[in-house]
């Protein structure tokens, strides 16, 4: 479960230094040993087999690899796995609960917020962080929060609608505060 593929490269350099880290992914604690140069995105995908996190551009542009690290959305292709030591990581696999889809996932379904789906997991994670901070965002605030996530299919209209749908759903699910 937690084995990490060893990167093959060039002539043997002797013992490759590895580091043991403890990372909690979607609430589940894993102890892994990895090379320091392993990127968080590769730890998630190849080490932990959580392939919902996508690698798009691999150059810190597209945001497809967005995950939450201690609740903040970051590009997992631009962080070393060893830097996640002791941290809590949430990926798209951590969104749904046994009782069903997360309201954001429902929203993307209801409002047709995806076409090819490649950017979707990153969009969902960036949107999750937005709604945690701002449960009632304006359209402009949604666009601003997703401005680090590229989509080449939708033109963003339905993605924005999906997030607003989810925001409304989450607000309606909240019990009314006592007056």
């Amino acid at each position, binding site marked *: 479960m937690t084995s990490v593929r060893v*990167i093959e*490269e060039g002539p043997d*350099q002797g013992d*490759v*230094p590895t*580091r043991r880290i403890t990372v909690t992914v979607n609430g589940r604690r894993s102890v892994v040993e990895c*090379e*320091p*140069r*392993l*990127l968080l995105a590769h730890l998630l995908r190849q080490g932990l087999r959580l392939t919902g996190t996508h690698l798009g551009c*691999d*150059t*810190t*542009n597209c*945001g497809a690899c*967005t995950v939450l690290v201690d609740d*903040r*959305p*970051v*590009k997992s*292709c*631009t*962080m*070393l796995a*060893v*830097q996640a*030591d002791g941290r809590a990581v949430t990926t798209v696999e951590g969104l749904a609960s046994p009782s069903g889809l997360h309201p954001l996932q429902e929203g993307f379904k209801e409002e047709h917020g995806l076409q090819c789906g490649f950017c979707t997991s990153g969009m969902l994670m*960036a949107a999750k962080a937005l709604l945690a901070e701002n449960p009632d965002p304006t359209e402009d605030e949604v666009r*601003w*929060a997703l*401005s*680090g*996530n590229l989509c080449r299919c939708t033109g963003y209209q339905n993605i924005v609608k999906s997030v607003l749908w989810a925001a409304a759903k989450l607000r309606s699910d909240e019990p009314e505060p006592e007056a």
Partner: protein
Amino acid sequence: MYPTRFRYEAPRSLDEAIGLLHEGGEDAKVLAGGQSLVPLLKLRFASPTLLVDLNTVPGLDHHDVDEQGNLHVGALCRHGDLERSALLKSTQPVMAAVARLVADPLVRNRGTLVGSLCHADPQGDWASVVLALGGSVVAAGPGGRRSIPVRDFVHGPFQNALAHDEVAVEAVVPAPRGIPAGGYLKLERRVGDFATVGVAVAIERDGDTVTRAGIALTGVGAATIEAADAAQALVGGPLTGDVIEHAAGLAAQAARPQGDHRGSAEFKRHMVRVFVRRILEQTGERAA
């Protein structure tokens, strides 16, 4: 894309970090936000043998104002921290305005202001802003601490004044003595792209009279450019239309743009003039 192999250390104190850098020599690198360094590692434009991660060093994520009113921004203070900071809005409005223009929201959650200064990218936003505000970088090394003005800190493209065993621990922006005003305008093709042109203007006023001014330019030269003559032209009187036009022209002359896929040299120089004028006119309107 995988970086080349390196040794990784996560020191628990600044002294330990400095010791590791000292021992690591020229091929050791400091890792803070990593939003420039990690891409460089992946593209193998950089292949350090040792990475010293500051993220495990306590006491570097601050941004606060001291008793004299100087703003201190620690090496682990993220762009996002500054974007959300009420303190920055009330003390350094020009910096508050630029924080949300740096890269994109995801990069801002990791990247740091001090790292941006150290990276010394001629297209980086913070170096211009901190330079216009007369700020400095505090470097800590085996021999103690020293303060380096940003104008001397940024040596050239991707070059800074740090010795290999020094850590930039914080940036310091001096307290304004007059009423501060100004702004940062950035032309970019899309969110997250590097600046085609960026202009930082910071002034301080006593009544109508400008008592201090700083102007710095992003993306129009081989390094961040300080437009000292343009800034000097603003000092000593009120911001009249003639003064603004004169300063905008001097700033455009200070630019050293090169034509590329983002625009021609003439276009970029023109935008410097437009941005200086626009910031100063908006400043005048807000005061009126």
